[in-house]
């Protein structure tokens, strides 16, 4: 049975008509039409589907879209600052922290949430902050350098 509700994604309100059990990831990709958020494992393990819900990271593959009503959803499409890349995006490119790129949107969402609760995370805190995101190209060292460079940049 489909149900109708509204979803706030990146500050825009979208009307949604979807099955009650449809996950947030599928609604974002299929109903809202934003495909930057990726489906990796579809099992709450890999973090490719990470979005922010009221600023906190959530695995959108394992969260019902109907439960996101009345909350602010932020996806990778919502992190740019106008035409400018977010510092995390730029630093990932500069550090070579993007290989195949599939994990990158999720990594950026987790890193953004991390830097919002901890402006200058120690290396171990950064590792824990990204611990719900897998990169199968094994690019973790460069990704962590990009997070560190962003923390320095945003706080100097």
């Amino acid at each position, binding site marked *: *049975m489909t*149900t109708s509700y509204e979803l706030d994604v990146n500050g825009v309100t979208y009307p949604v008509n979807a099955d*009650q*059990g449809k*996950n947030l990831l599928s609604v974002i990709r299929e109903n809202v039409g934003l495909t930057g958020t990726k489906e990796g494992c*579809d*099992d*709450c*393990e890999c*973090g490719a589907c*990470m979005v922010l*819900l009221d600023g*906190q*990271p*959530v*695995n959108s593959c*394992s*969260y*019902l879209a*109907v*439960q996101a*009503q*009345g909350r602010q959803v932020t996806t990778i499409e919502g992190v740019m600052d106008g035409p400018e890349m977010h510092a995390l995006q730029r630093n990932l490119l500069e550090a070579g922290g993007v290989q195949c790129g599939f994990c990158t949107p999720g990594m950026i969402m*987790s890193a953004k*949430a*991390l830097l919002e609760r901890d402006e200058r995370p120690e290396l*171990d805190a950064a590792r*824990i*902050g990204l*611990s*719900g*995101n897998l990169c199968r190209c094994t690019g973790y060292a460069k990704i962590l350098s990009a997070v560190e460079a962003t923390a320095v940049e945003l706080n100097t």
Partner: protein
Amino acid sequence: MSFTIATTVDEALVALGAGARPIAGGTDLVVGARHGKAALPADLVAIDRIDELGGVELDSAGVRVGALMSHAEVMTDPVIVGSYTAIADASALVGSPSTRHVGTLGGNVMNGSPAMDTGAPLTVLGATAELRSVTGGRTVSLDELWAGPGRTTANPGELLVALHLPPARDRCGSAYVRLEYRRAMEIAVVGAAAAVTLAADGTVASVAVALAAVAPTILSVDGVNEALVGRTAAAAGPVAGALASEQAAPISDLRASDRYRRHCIGVMAKRAVDAAARRADGESIAVPVNRSIGIGAA
């Protein structure tokens, strides 16, 4: 099919009474449904916006911990970290930052997994569960609540609203330690919690030990208090470990054999007693113990 967003406990109870199932973070329910473990219930009531289900409050009977406290809140709450540290140790190990933000203490308890991280800590700290339904409320011990893997004795119309902890005691420390193969998105291979109170001379005045993932429900170790009272903290750990290994009734599955679990639960129980005794003695060991003293995966 229906989906209701409740903003008060009473609204939620009415929906539960009409046959709906509660959903908070959905980290067990939604993942379980997609695994084919159990279909997503047709009627759901979202309880994640009910303010009265959150927070930690001190009262004359001890501490009331709202069932909706997320693991991220539990692991940083000053009262829990200060006096009921084993629960914080456990919440800090659950899933990943995203799981800890949407996953709740109440969900962990009511999902009834024998491998739940917060169950053994709550057990050794003497927690009770407050259940409410449209017809009233009752408070039960956790031992009465858990009936088997994924099963509780709560009726379908009952909602876990809070966990209650007795007042903190002087010179009491607690810790939860688990064996894990990796540091995120992991489930306990085995886990052990201990609460230790020390006497003025530094010997054990009282102790409780409970185990995760070695029986159909969280297992309290029998006779551990009698065996350890009066011993030095250093001597207590190995005895607790031996009792834990002896009483464990583990299964073999793809994560570990029963033999390996039986051996490792002894190691974890010893480490939990050691860490709890050190905390009882005033030493500050950061949450979670697994990370701060290098237990578990490297």
